[in-house]
């Protein structure tokens, strides 16, 4: 008993001693109060080679362009822990926060209410407030293009798609991809496998293997890591990545990927905050804004794909081609978008149905 007391006293004393010193030598985080500080909340580690990697590239670009200081925290779960991470960053002096996954939405909303002077930017959600905007990109456009590549490459007419959650963001991507596939390979089907995780290299790879066992010869993905790419590589099949160029992870399989380019947008937003001109908005940029694009096609891509992609891209940029233009039917053959009209942005944001040719279920 006495012993424990001594030990604890000793620990406490040494702690107070160090704290005493600490006050004399403040940690680097507390310096430079004048400098703009921007915080980034990540769902995975920046080394995931995918989603978080792309955001981290944007963060580095922001630092380089504006000379602002940035802090980030990786692998933050999409629950109450994210609120603490945001508050911690504000405590450390962050004035602008980029919170980069869908599941943080309600938590951003809550913290934004507590800190009206801080600017919150939530990626991929749909809520907003005076100091809380959301931003995303029409990744559907390059996804459609990647579907063209996959559709031309597939011999079996079966393409696998490893997908995270059955939320509109993911459903939209699967539909756009499938429509791209069908534009060159009308009878091809896209088989969907849900993982219920954004970031889990092993689980994502496993899902891809299941699909490959079912006979698909191309793997596409809406996941944050290159796990599915690796599965395709190991089986000698081909793949379409996501988020960033994944050629290094699967050199023999990888053909192309819809990719994000967040940097310029981050610079523009932080600049607006610094100038005092920032206003909450729901930003949804497309290929013409440069926030999304298709990564260069590798030698694995089929012959003629480059030309087909370039033509479709030019049509999208020129406004001649809309990914979600009618006629569109759902899985049961029911007409969802009549010929001559296009799916509205609002309907896209709430998309809860698969187009014809997708094999998979929503809402399980």
């Amino acid at each position, binding site marked *: 008993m006495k012993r424990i007391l001594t030990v604890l006293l000793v620990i*406490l004393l040494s702690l107070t001693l160090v704290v005493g010193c600490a006050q004399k030598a403040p940690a680097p985080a507390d310096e430079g109060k004048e400098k703009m500080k921007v*915080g980034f909340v990540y769902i995975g580690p920046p080394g995931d080679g995918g989603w978080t990697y792309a955001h981290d590239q944007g963060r580095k670009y922001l630092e380089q362009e504006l000379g602002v200081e940035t802090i*980030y*925290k990786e692998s933050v779960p999409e629950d109450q822990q994210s609120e603490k991470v945001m508050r911690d960053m504000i405590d*450390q002096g962050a004035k602008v926060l980029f919170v980069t996954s869908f599941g943080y939405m309600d938590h951003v909303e809550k913290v934004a209410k507590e800190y009206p002077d801080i600017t919150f930017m939530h990626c991929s959600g749909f809520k907003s407030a005076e100091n809380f905007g959301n931003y995303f990109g029409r990744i559907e456009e390059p996804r459609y293009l990647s579907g063209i590549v996959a559709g031309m490459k597939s011999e079996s007419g079966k393409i696998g798609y490893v997908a995270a959650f059955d939320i509109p963001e993911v459903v939209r991507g699967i539909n756009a991809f499938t429509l791209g596939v069908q534009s060159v390979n009308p009878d091809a089907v896209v088989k969907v496998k849900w993982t219920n995780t954004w970031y889990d290299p092993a689980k994502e790879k496993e899902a891809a293997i299941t699909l490959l066992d079912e006979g698909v010869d191309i793997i596409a993905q809406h996941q944050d890591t290159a796990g599915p790419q690796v599965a395709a590589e190991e089986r000698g099949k081909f793949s379409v990545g996501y988020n960033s160029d994944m050629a290094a992870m699967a050199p023999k399989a990888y053909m192309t990927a819809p990719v994000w380019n967040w940097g310029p947008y981050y610079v523009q937003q932080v600049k607006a905050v610094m100038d005092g001109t920032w206003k909450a908005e729901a930003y949804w940029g497309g290929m013409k804004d440069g926030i999304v694009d298709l990564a260069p096609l590798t030698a694995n891509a089929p012959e003629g794909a480059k030309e087909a992609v370039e033509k479709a891209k030019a049509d999208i940029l020129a406004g001649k081609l809309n990914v979600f233009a009618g006629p569109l039917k759902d899985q049961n053959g029911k007409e969802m978008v009549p010929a001559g009209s296009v799916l509205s942005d609002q309907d896209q944001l709430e998309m809860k149905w698969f187009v014809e040719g997708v094999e998979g279920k929503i809402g399980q």
Partner: protein
Amino acid sequence: MQFRLVKKPEITQRQYTVIILTAIALALLTSGLFILLLGLNPIQVYLAMLNGAFGSTYRLEQTIIVAIPLVIISLGIAVAFKMKFWNIGAEGQVIMGAFFASYLALNYQDAPKPLLLLGMLAAGFLGGGLWGLIPAFFKARWGTNETIVTLMMNYIALKWITYLQYGPWKDPNSMGFPKIPNFTANAILPNFLGVHLGWVIALILVVIMYFFMNHSKKGFEIAVLGESLNTARYAGVNIFRTILFSMFISGGICGLAGMIQASAVGNTLSVEVAGGVGYTAIITAWLGALKAPWIVLVSVLFAALVQGSSYIQSAFGISAASASLIQAMILFFVLGSDFFTKYKVVFGSEFLTRGKEARE
């Protein structure tokens, strides 16, 4: 080289202090090397950890928020451990407590706030307590291994919440994202002096458990049962009922922590509601020597370590894995030193001579 472990006689306070200080020094040194490998200045990182845990009112509050569940769950675990019933199932008891409380929170959101909160506290206690009763019954009736049973029941509890979150309790307004709807304001524990009411509950529990374990008949019976089954039998303790009773209390207290985490911190139930704190609390209960007041001190220090290593991640851009590595290294040495207060290592020649002496 030959060596052997020899049990030490009681050691003096001075020796004890030396061992602990050496452990802390070694811990700082080893993780310092690792920090150097990361290309950072270890002294700066350590100072930042302290700064991150105690450096401002806000940070102190955050440290306390981390400490609250540690204190409460450690108190719960201590009851079972005192009886030498190795309850590794705190994690599951926390989860089931949170589940019971959440049932009320989600279904009776319009009830008056004080009534609803009290109901949730009671439900939390009941949920954790019942979950604790199951392994207690198996142990008391058939002598099953409680370590295995309590541990396995954690996974059952976790999978049950996973099922609810992805299935019947999924928020219909979340556009398909698997989360349980948020509690209404009625079901959320209010703040008191900057931190949610959980800290008051924790302190009240500390006092209650101190008196229960040290000055009540039941507490005494639990301690006797822990010391020796036969003595307890001679003394006329009802073994079956004591095991069941103490595990109900142990699990119930853990369940209270579950209610507090779900209500005040999460504002809803999720698979992360316990997030491993049920396991961490085993360490703090043990380091606190299963004694109520010490558990508070150890838990706060532990929370400071957690909060500090979270702080250095964003302050220095250290990866989450590296920060936990530093945290684990410090813990490894402090926990490991406990061993050297009870045993000492005797090397080859010394061991032989000593053996000879003993024979002569």
